[in-house]
């Protein structure tokens, strides 16, 4: 606080400066930036479509037949499939995290702000859900309602909001003692308005940190389902389905396993490093 006042810097400028000083986080940002750009525009630059079947190129080795990373058993270009798979995985990660963000913040802020019996009951529910093997529920959902991309976003998002709710509740409990909330109440704002206008904007720091750490978790969950054959449907693909196919083909064409694994690890690693970096940058404890 004192530092911010002396330098005339806001919390966010300060955090950004600290984040840029963290080598691992910067490396993570660069890697993630490259991956995102590649996933977004890469597929349009390639001569092959991710679902174009080329009879003559089946199991093509990398750098043969014009395929930079080779081709799969149907002769589909691996690089094109990898970029589309990355796009799907990142997309699932962002959308499902958004679902978990909305539920978690609303739940945690309500419980923390209203407090008392309601808080007790709401957090008990979180505790209960916390102790369940949620992957099994997602699989049960996918079994029962069929493989559906939208449902998968919702299902994964709906089971990953618990930690978010806990973090938000803790922050809210601290925030509601502060003077500006008192002032808002004195000014006659309704409870809902106080929660949405004053509490939630101030929760941004910890929420941003946790969001960056939720995305890799969600990507893993989606790939987990795809690996088991319960994820996205062919010809669409995701990093998990590509690893799953690579797993079947590894004796003949190990690169079909290795390339998706590398992209997966790079993505998860980058996100984890950014998340850790943000936590260090925004956590006032270490100042």
């Amino acid at each position: 606080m004192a530092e911010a006042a002396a330098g005339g810097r806001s919390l966010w400028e300060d955090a950004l400066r600290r984040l840029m000083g963290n080598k691992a986080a910067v490396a993570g940002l660069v890697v993630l930036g490259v991956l995102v750009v590649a996933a977004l525009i890469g597929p349009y630059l390639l001569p092959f479509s991710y679902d174009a079947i080329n009879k003559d190129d089946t199991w093509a080795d990398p750098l043969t037949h014009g395929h930079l990373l080779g081709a799969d058993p149907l002769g589909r270009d691996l690089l094109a499939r990898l970029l589309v798979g990355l796009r799907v995985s990142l997309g699932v990660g962002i959308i499902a995290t958004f679902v978990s963000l909305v539920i978690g913040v609303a739940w945690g802020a309500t419980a923390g702000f209203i407090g008392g019996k309601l808080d007790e009951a709401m957090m008990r529910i979180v505790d209960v859900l916390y102790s369940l093997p949620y992957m099994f529920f997602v699989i049960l959902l996918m079994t029962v309602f069929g493989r559906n991309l939208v449902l998968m976003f919702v299902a994964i998002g709906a089971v990953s909001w618990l930690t978010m709710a806990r973090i938000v509740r803790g922050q809210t409990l601290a925030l509601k003692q502060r003077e500006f909330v008192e002032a808002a109440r004195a000014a006659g704002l309704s409870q809902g308005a106080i929660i949405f206008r004053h509490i939630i904007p101030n929760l941004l720091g910890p929420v941003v940190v946790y969001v960056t750490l939720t995305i890799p978790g969600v990507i893993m969950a989606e790939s987990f389902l795809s690996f088991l054959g319960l994820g996205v449907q062919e010809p669409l693909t995701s990093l998990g389905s590509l690893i799953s196919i690579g797993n079947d083909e590894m004796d003949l064409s190990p690169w079909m396993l290795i390339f998706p694994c590398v992209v997966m690890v790079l993505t998860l690693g980058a996100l984890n490093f950014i998340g850790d970096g943000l936590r260090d940058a925004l956590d006032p404890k270490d100042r």
Partner: protein
Amino acid sequence: MIRFLFRRLLTAIPTLFLVVTAAFFMMRAAPGSPFDGQRRLAPEVERNVMAKYGLNKPLGEQYLTYVGGVLHGDFGPSLKYKDKTVLQMIGQGFPASLMIGGLAMALATVGGIFLGVVAALRRNRPADYAVMTFAILGICIPTFVTAPLLVLILASKLGLLPTAGWPIGGQSLTDAASYLVLPILVLGLPEMAVISRLTRSGMIEAMSSNYVRTARARGLPEHVIVLRHALRGAILPLVSYLGPAVAGIVTGSLIVEQMFQLPGIGRYFVTSALQRDYTVVMGVVILYAGLILVLNLIADLLYAALDPRVRLS
């Protein structure tokens, strides 16, 4: 203590009830039926099959029958394997799952504590960095990446271990054990990474605590200080990690059992899910939810027993 146990049971029982209810209604909401095969059944036959499994009764009655059955330890028949009950299928898979999961858990605990202690005692030196790098890798590389890569390197290319399978009778002990190495490694590594991190931070805190300083002032040898005094305090947080660790291993077993063709519950679960064998899927979900609830309860009790500062109220 008794009151605490009672209170926790009061929340654990409704939780399990909730799980059973959610699983039941999800299953009934499913479009299609497990009897949709290649051939369409004649309407009379279908009616008979539905009647056999009680699927023609009102939903409420079916629900009560199912809950009553679960209370008596009866999870109903498998819908795909006509001559087996869900419980028989679970019983068939349990030994393999328990063996792999238990050994993975042992590896994760012993290995993780060892690495964590080494890292804490060599803080900010190469050994510490090596352990922490391993921990970060272990946490952000998922099992479905490590499993195929380890198979590719250790089994396919180097030929050190079998790629998949389960020991059958008549093999030498080392041959039989070689089937277990990769599954246990893949399952145990992520948990080992987390445990080594937890142990390291616990150990660093303990080594700077007053009781360790006292022990040192009394002139005790370093290994006694580390093993007898510091480690005891440092591994306390691990007890509350017991529940999540088991949940992680159980979830990982879905991948590992599928990947290595092990005859365990995880593989039946995935196969049943793909075949829409609802009763088996539900049975496994309920069983594992119950297992994790019980383990969390044990962890809480153990924590209180080990740490007199914790008051159970």
